[in-house]
């Protein structure tokens, strides 16, 4: 055993730094990541609300009217507003990350990230407009 090893053997050994439960608060990037992850909860709430709507629809006009009335109460209006905001945040942050995942090569060159992101935003707008069109134009 070398002198260094002897000294280390008698010492405290490697130090493992503890990680706080609040590790994500001290770093802006980590905080943004955690917020992005937490917005998934609101995506889940949106999915549950949609399933509830479909269920009400399948139960007939009266059940659906009751569902619509309930959605018009202040609590549900607030909840839907919050869900809309967080789902928008979730969607935008993920669409911004898409160029990292979708790598397209044309003519031996990688298509720039901006074009990939713009294409996805464009698709999002077109699909949203289509859904709005179906709902509003009868």
């Amino acid at each position, binding site marked *: 055993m070398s002198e260094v090893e002897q*000294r*280390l053997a*008698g*010492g*405290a*050994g*490697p*130090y*493992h*730094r503890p*990680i706080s439960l609040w*590790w*994500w608060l*001290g*770093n802006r*990037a*980590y905080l943004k*990541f955690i917020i992005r*992850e937490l917005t998934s909860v609101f995506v889940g709430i949106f999915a549950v609300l949609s399933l509830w709507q479909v269920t009400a629809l399948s139960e007939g006009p009266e059940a659906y009217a009751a569902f619509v009335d309930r959605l018009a109460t202040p609590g549900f209006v607030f909840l839907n507003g919050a869900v809309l905001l967080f789902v928008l945040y979730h969607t935008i942050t993920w669409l911004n*990350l898409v160029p*990292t*995942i979708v*790598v397209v*090569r044309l003519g*031996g060159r990688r298509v720039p990230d901006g074009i990939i992101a713009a294409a996805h935003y464009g698709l999002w707008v077109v699909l949203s407009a289509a859904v709005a069109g179906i709902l509003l134009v009868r």
Partner: protein
Amino acid sequence: MAETIELTVARYRPEEETEPTFQSYEVPYREDWVVLDALNYVKDQLDGSLSYRWSCRMGVCGSCGMMVNGTPKLTCAVPLSDYVSKPIRIEPLQFFPILRDLIVDIGGFLGKLSSVKPWIIRDNDQSPHEGEYSQTPAELDVYKQFSMCINCMLCYSACPVVGLEPEFTGPAAIALAQRYNLDSRDQGAAERLAILDEHEGMWGCTFVGECTKVCPKNVDPAGAIQLYKRASATEWFKSVLLPWGSR
């Protein structure tokens, strides 16, 4: 302009103390110095007992990675002038065990690196006299970015998953696996997928994205891991949808 700058450095001497402490040094401020120069000044002029790793001084060897004011940096690439109005706090790379002062234990990292088989795997190796495995510039371009890694471990120090789940293979190793998967000469993608298609492998990544931001060589480990996930998911869909087809 300040003539000196304060350097607060983490110290850990396992034979003397049970946890790290901080020590401040006053070093000359020079516009042409990087943080590593300031550390070398401390070592040479003020306190020879300070321990840290460094070698090339030009962003190639990847030895001098440390936390500079909370961010993983290659200290040879950070000008002192970036911190002229504030004290500089230097700590060992986070999420690694500290051996002494600014030196961390990289044994776990090296084990993860070799676990992904980062070499060209062939079904049938041909002997050297049969000629080289040729490759076009376009084929090189597909993986070149991922081959620029210098193993500086800044990405591990930026990744909270590495800290929270020590078994996670981590950004550089997965990016390196992807570098070989994308190499037209390699035939080992299935072997690596078997190793990395686990929670401790690529699926441990939650896409925080900080690994890519701190990478001094623009390797984009986060991108490599997401591409790997996509390839794995494609393989899974193929196996479900085309059970008798070619996988």
